[in-house]
C-alpha cells in the first residue's frame, strides 16, 4: 500500500494541489541538465514522501542524499539542494560546499528554498562566502501537503526558528503566521475567496488579518471561479485550548500516535511486531484512508477497535471453515469469499498493531492515568490528583508524562496554590535534575504551570460548553466526548458552536479563553465585540449543486488525531450540513508538543555552562546586553540557585 494518501473522496480537490506540487518539483529537477545529486533536508524528505514516490525522484536524479553536517558523498558534477529555508540548514549547506572546495572538487551547486527565498538564509550563505558559488538560487513553493483526504498540513516543523517553544513563551509566531496566511491564500487562489473568516487567539487573529491583507495585495479573481468552495475558515490557536492535547487520546489513531508516533502518515515499528521473521529491523506501516479497514476504525475508541478487528478476523475464519467443510459452494459464493480474503493483509496489519498497542494501553498504569485525567477534568478530588502527580514524579516516570498531567492540573485549577506549586517544582528538580530549572520557568511564563492567582473559571467553561458528557454506549457514541472517554475536546466544541449557532451565543465563554477573537466577512472587518455577521444556524449550507459546503478548520500550533476524529464525528452528525477539512501546522500529541520546550530549555542551560560569556559577539556594556544574554543570564542564575539548593 502506498504511503501517498488516496484523495479521491476529499471534499476539496486536493489531488489537483498535490499534482501541481509534483509537477513543480519534477520541472525544477528536469530544468537542471546532466547527472545530478539531489540533497534534501531530513524533514523535507518525509514531507515529500507524501507528495510523490521516491522512485519518481530517482528517475530524474542520479543520486539522492539527505542533508547532514557531514560532507556530501557523490560522484555527480552537479549538486542540487532542496532545503527548507531555515538558518540551521544553511550552515550545513555552506559547510558542505566549503568542504568540497577545500578538497579541490569542482561542482555546480543549485539551491532551491522551500517554500521561498529568505534573506536571512542568504545572509548566512553570504557570510560563509558560498553565495556566489551557487549557480541558481530558486524556490519550490510548497506551502501545504495533504496528509489525508480531509487533513492538510502546513508542515511547519518544531525546529523552525519560530518554534513551538518560541510561540508559547515569547508570543512570536511571525514566520509561521505568515506562512499559514500564505498557505490559506493559496487555497483561496485554487478554491475561491473564503467569505467567512473566524479566528480565536493571538496568532490566529493575526493570520486572519494577514490573509485579508494578502487578498487586498493580490486579489483572487472570482470571475472564473464561481461559488467559492470553502464557505468558512475557522482559525484556532493551540493556546486557546491547551487542555485537550494534554489528555490521553483514546481513539485508535490517537493511541497509535501517542505510543508509536505517526510521522508523515506512517509509523515505524519493529518488523517482529508486524509478524515478520527478522527481528530488530524497522518497518514502515503507512496509515491513511487508502486503507479501507483503517478508514473504518481509525476514529473508533480503541476498545471498540479491538472488538471490530477480532470480529473481522473470526468472520473470515468462519468463512474459511465453511469453504473447507462443504464442497457444494457455487462459483459466485467462492468469488465472494476470495474477495473478502483480499482484505486479509489489512486485517493482519491492524491485528498486529492493535495487539502491540494493547501491550501499552492494557496496563493498569494507563487506566489509572486516564482515570486521573478524568478526575482533573471534572475538577474532583483535588488531593487525589495532587498525590498522584507527586507519586509519578517520585517514580521517575518520563518527564513528558508528568508534565502533561501537571499542565492539565494547573490549567483546570487556574494554577496551583503556592505551597503545592513550590513543592512539586522542587520534587521535579530533585527527581529529574537541575537542568530542568529553565523548563519550569518557561512553563510558568507560558502560563502552563503556574501559581494560582485567581479563581479558576474552568468549571464555567466546562458547563457552558458541555465538555463532560458520559458515553452510554461506546459502540455507537452519541457525542464526540468518546474520543477522550467522556471529555469533549474544547477546541472542537468551539467549532461546533461556531457552525451551529455562531460564536455570539457563547460570547461570555470565549472571553474567558485566551487571546482576541475576530469575525470577518470578506470586505468588512470587525474586531471582537461587534455584531455577528454570519447567518445563524446550520441551514442553507448546501449550494446549488447539492454539494455540502466545506469548512476549513485551521489549528495554529498543531492538532491531535483525537480532535480530528471528533471533528469527523461532528461532520457526520445529522443536521450538520458541512464537510470539515482540517488544516494544521503539525499533527501533535501532548508529548510532541512539550518535547521541544523540554529540549530547548535543556539546551540553553548546557550552553550557558559551556559558553559562559553571555552576549556572544556583542559588548555587554551596551544597551543590547540584557537583550542578548537575557536567557543565558537567567540560566546562570538558575544554576546558582540550584547549587545553593543542593548545598543546603
Amino acid at each position, binding site marked *: 500500500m502506498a504511503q501517498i494518501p488516496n484523495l479521491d473522496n476529499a471534499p476539496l480537490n486536493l489531488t489537483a494541489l498535490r499534482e501541481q506540487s509534483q509537477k513543480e518539483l519534477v520541472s525544477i529537477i528536469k530544468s537542471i541538465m546532466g547527472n545530478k545529486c539531489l540533497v534534501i533536508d531530513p524533514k523535507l524528505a518525509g514531507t515529500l514522501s507524501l507528495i510523490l514516490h521516491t522512485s519518481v525522484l530517482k528517475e530524474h536524479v542520479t543520486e539522492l542524499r539527505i542533508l547532514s553536517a557531514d560532507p556530501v558523498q557523490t560522484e555527480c558534477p552537479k549538486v542540487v539542494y532542496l532545503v527548507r529555508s531555515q538558518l540551521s540548514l544553511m550552515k550545513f549547506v555552506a559547510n558542505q560546499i566549503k568542504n568540497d572546495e577545500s578538497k579541490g572538487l569542482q561542482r555546480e551547486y543549485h539551491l532551491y528554498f522551500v517554500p521561498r527565498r529568505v534573506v536571512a538564509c542568504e545572509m548566512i550563505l553570504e557570510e560563509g562566502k558560498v553565495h556566489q558559488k551557487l549557480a541558481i538560487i530558486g524556490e519550490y513553493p510548497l506551502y501545504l501537503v495533504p496528509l489525508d483526504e480531509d487533513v492538510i498540513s502546513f508542515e511547519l516543523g518544531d525546529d523552525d*526558528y519560530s518554534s513551538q517553544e518560541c510561540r508559547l513563551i515569547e508570543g512570536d509566531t*511571525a514566520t509561521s*503566521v505568515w506562512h499559514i496566511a500564505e498557505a490559506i491564500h493559496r487555497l483561496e487562489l485554487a478554491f475561491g475567496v473564503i467569505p467567512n473568516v473566524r479566528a480565536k487567539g493571538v496568532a490566529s487573529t493575526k493570520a486572519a488579518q494577514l490573509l485579508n491583507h494578502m487578498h487586498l495585495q493580490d486579489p483572487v479573481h472570482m470571475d472564473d471561479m464561481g461559488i467559492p468552495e470553502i464557505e468558512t475558515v475557522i482559525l484556532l490557536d493551540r493556546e486557546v485550548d491547551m487542555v485537550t492535547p494534554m489528555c490521553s487520546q483514546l481513539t485508535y489513531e490517537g493511541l497509535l500516535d501517542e505510543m508509536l508516533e505517526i510521522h508523515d502518515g506512517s509509523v515505524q515499528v519493529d518488523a517482529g511486531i508486524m509478524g515478520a521473521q527478522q527481528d530488530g529491523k524497522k518497518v514502515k506501516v503507512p496509515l491513511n484512508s487508502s486503507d479501507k479497514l483503517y478508514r473504518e476504525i481509525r476514529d473508533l475508541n480503541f476498545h471498540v477497535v479491538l472488538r471490530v478487528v477480532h470480529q473481522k478476523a473470526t468472520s473470515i475464519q468462519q468463512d474459511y471453515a465453511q469453504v473447507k467443510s462443504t464442497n457444494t459452494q457455487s462459483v459466485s459464493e467462492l468469488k465472494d469469499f476470495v474477495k473478502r480474503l483480499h482484505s486479509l493483509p489489512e486485517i493482519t496489519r491492524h491485528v498486529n498493531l492493535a495487539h502491540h498497542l494493547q501491550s501499552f494501553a492494557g496496563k493498569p498504569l494507563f487506566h489509572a492515568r486516564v482515570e486521573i485525567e478524568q478526575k482533573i477534568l471534572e475538577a474532583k478530588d483535588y488531593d487525589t490528583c495532587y498525590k498522584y502527580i507527586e507519586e509519578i514524579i517520585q517514580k521517575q516516570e518520563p518527564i513528558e508524562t508528568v508534565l502533561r498531567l501537571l499542565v492539565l492540573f494547573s490549567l483546570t485549577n487556574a494554577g496551583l496554590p503556592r505551597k503545592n506549586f513550590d513543592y512539586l517544582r522542587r520534587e521535579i528538580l530533585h527527581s529529574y535534575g537541575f537542568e530542568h530549572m529553565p523548563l519550569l520557568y518557561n512553563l510558568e511564563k507560558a502560563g502552563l504551570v503556574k501559581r494560582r492567582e485567581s479563581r479558576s473559571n474552568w468549571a464555567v467553561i466546562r458547563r457552558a460548553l458541555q465538555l463532560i458528557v458520559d458515553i452510554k454506549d461506546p459502540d455507537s457514541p452519541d457525542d464526540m466526548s468518546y474520543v477522550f472517554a467522556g471529555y469533549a475536546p474544547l477546541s472542537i466544541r468551539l467549532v461546533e458552536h461556531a457552525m451551529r449557532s455562531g460564536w455570539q451565543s457563547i460570547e461570555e465563554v470565549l472571553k474567558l479563553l485566551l487571546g482576541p477573537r475576530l469575525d470577518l466577512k470578506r470586505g468588512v472587518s470587525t474586531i471582537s465585540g461587534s455584531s455577528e455577521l454570519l447567518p445563524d444556524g446550520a441551514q442553507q449550507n448546501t449550494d446549488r449543486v447539492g454539494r455540502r459546503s466545506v469548512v476549513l478548520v485551521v489549528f495554529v500550533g498543531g492538532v491531535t488525531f483525537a480532535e480530528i476524529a471528533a471533528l469527523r464525528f461532528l461532520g457526520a452528525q445529522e443536521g450538520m450540513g458541512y464537510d470539515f477539512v482540517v488544516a494544521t501546522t503539525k499533527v501533535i500529541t501532548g508529548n510532541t508538543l512539550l518535547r521541544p520546550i523540554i529540549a530547548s530549555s535543556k539546551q540553553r542551560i548546557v550552553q550557558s555552562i559551556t559558553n559562559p560569556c553571555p552576549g556572544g559577539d556583542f559588548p555587554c556594556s551596551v544597551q543590547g546586553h540584557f*537583550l542578548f544574554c537575557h536567557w543565558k543570564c537567567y540560566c546562570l542564575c538558575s544554576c546558582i540557585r540550584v547549587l545553593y539548593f543542593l548545598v543546603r
Partner: protein
Amino acid sequence: SSGVGRLDLSTHIVAAAPFGGPIAAVRDDSKIVQLHSEPSRRRLLLFSSSGHPLASSPWTPHLPRLHSLAFSSSLNLLALLSDGSLLRFRLPDLNPITSSSPVPLLPPASGGVADAVFWGGGVAILTEDNRVVVTTDIEVDDPHPRELADPGVAEDEQVLCMAVVEPQFVMSGSPEVLLAVGDRVVAVDEDGVQVLGEALEIGPVQKMAVSPNGKLLAAFAHDGRLLVIPTDFSRIIFEYECDSALPPDQIAWCGLDSVLLYWSEVLLMVGPNGDPVQYNYDEPVMLIPECDGVRILTNSSMEFLHRVPDSTTLIFGIGSMSPAALLYDARDHYDKQSAKAYDNYQLISSSLPEAIEACIDAAGYEFDVSRQHTLLRAATYGLAFCSSRFPHGRFQEMCKILRVLNAVRDPEIGMPLTVKQYKLLTATVLIGRLINANQHLLALRISEYLNLNPEVVIMHWACEKITASAAIPDVVLLEGLLDKLRLCKGISYAAVAAHADNSGRRKLAAMLVDHESQSSKQIPLLLSIDEQDKALQKSIDSGDTDLVYLVLFHIWQKISVEKSAPLDFFGVINARPLARDLFIAYA
C-alpha cells in the same frame, strides 16, 4: 503626405525605421552643400514619417566621419562612424545612451569601415582590409562584436557588394554574410567560407538584396540581368534583362514577390509575371523596405508602394464581375434607392460570404478613410443577408484595427502602418512606440479601446511627468500623479516612486511609496530612500518576517559601513519585539 521641409536627401545621410517609424538625418559632410540660411554646424535631425520635426541635437564635432545611420528594432538610433565605432541615441529626445563616447565594434588596426549592413538587432561590417565583423547584440550596453571567418579576398580583387541573411532565417542562429567578390559570391559565417552558385555562372554581382523572409536573393549582375535566386544558390528562379547594365543605386524587395530597382530619376518595379512598371522621379529617392511593400521617401513626399492586393483587384478591377465587385455595386445602388441592388444580390447570393470577406479585406488595405467607409458599408449590406453564414467577429475586428490605424496614421502622429505591418508589430509594441514618442493620451485610448492593461502607459506617463516637471512643487505634482495612477488598479506605485527618487525627488518618492499596497515592493524602496524606521515599521506590519530581516540587515550593514555606534541599532530594534526576536534568532 506632407514634405520633410528643407531636408535634401542627396546631401544627407538618412535612416528610416521600419513599421512606419521615424526618419533620422545628418548632413553628409563628404558632399558640397550650398548653405542658405541654416547654421553651418551639423545637427542630428529626427522627423516623424509625416515629416514633422520631432527633435534635433547638435552633432558632436571632431568625430570620425559618419558612415551610416540605422534604427534598431527597439527604436534606438545607431550611428556607425567610419572608424568602426558606434554611437547610440535614445528616442524621442536623441539623448546618447550610456556614454557619449562611441563604442568600438572593430578590432584596432582593421582599417575602418568599407561597407556595413544593419538589421533590427545587429550590424555586419566589412572592413577596409576585407574582413567581416558582425555584432548581434547591438542593443546591450557593451555589444560583443565577433569576427567571422576570413572571406579570402585576394589583393587585386575587391568586394562589389554585400548582403546579410538575418540570424532568425539561418539554421545556426548566427547571421550569414554574402559577399560578391570578383565573379563569385561567398557566404561567410563563423565557421567558414563557402563559394556559392559556381554552377549558375552568374558573373560579377553588382548589387544584392535579401528578401524579407530571408529565403530569396535579388542580385543585379554585371551584364544587366536581375536574378532571383534562393539564398543557397541552388537555381535561378527568375531572370529579367534590364535596359541598363549600370548597377542601380538602390535595390529593395517590395513584399515577397517583386523587386524595386532605382537609378537616378527612374524606379523600376519588377514582378514575377508581366512587364515591369516604371515610375519617374525628378528628385532623389530613398527606398525604405517594409514587410509588405516599400516606403518611398523623396524630398517632398512619402509614398507607399506595394502590389495591388487581390481583393482590391477583385472589386475595382476594370470590368470585374466578381461577387465582391457586384456587392460593392449593390451597395451603391442601394444607397441610390435603386432596385438593382436586389438584382445584384440575387446574382451573388450563393457566394456572398466570399464577397463580404473581399470587401472587408480590401477596406483593410485602404489608406483613404472614405474608401474604407464605402467598402465596409458594402460589407454590411452583404452581412444583412447572411448573418448566419459569416463570422461576425471578422467585421468588428477589422473595424477596430482600422480605427487604431487611422488614429496613428494621422499626420500629427505620423505612423503610416498597414494592416499587415500592424499585425506583425502587435498592438502592445505599437503602444510601446506611442508612449516612447510621448503620445500617452492616444496610447491610453488605444489600450482602453483594445481592452489592454493601461498600466504600462500610465506608468510611463507618470515617470515622464516627473522628469518633465522639475519646477512643480511636490504636493501639486503628487496630486496630479495620483489622479492618473488611480485609473489603473494594482499599478506599482513603488516603480513610480523609484523613478522620482532617481530624478532627485526623494520627498516625492516618500509620498508616492505610501500608496504602494504591496509590502514586498514598498519596503526595498523605503530602504533605498533612507526611510529605515518607516521600512522597519511597515515590514513588521506586513507580518512577513523575510521583509523584517531585509530591513534589519540593511540597517546593520549601513551601521558597519558608516561605523556609527551599534547602540542606535539596538535602540531601534529593542523597541520592536518582533524585530528583536528575529535578530536574536539570527545572531
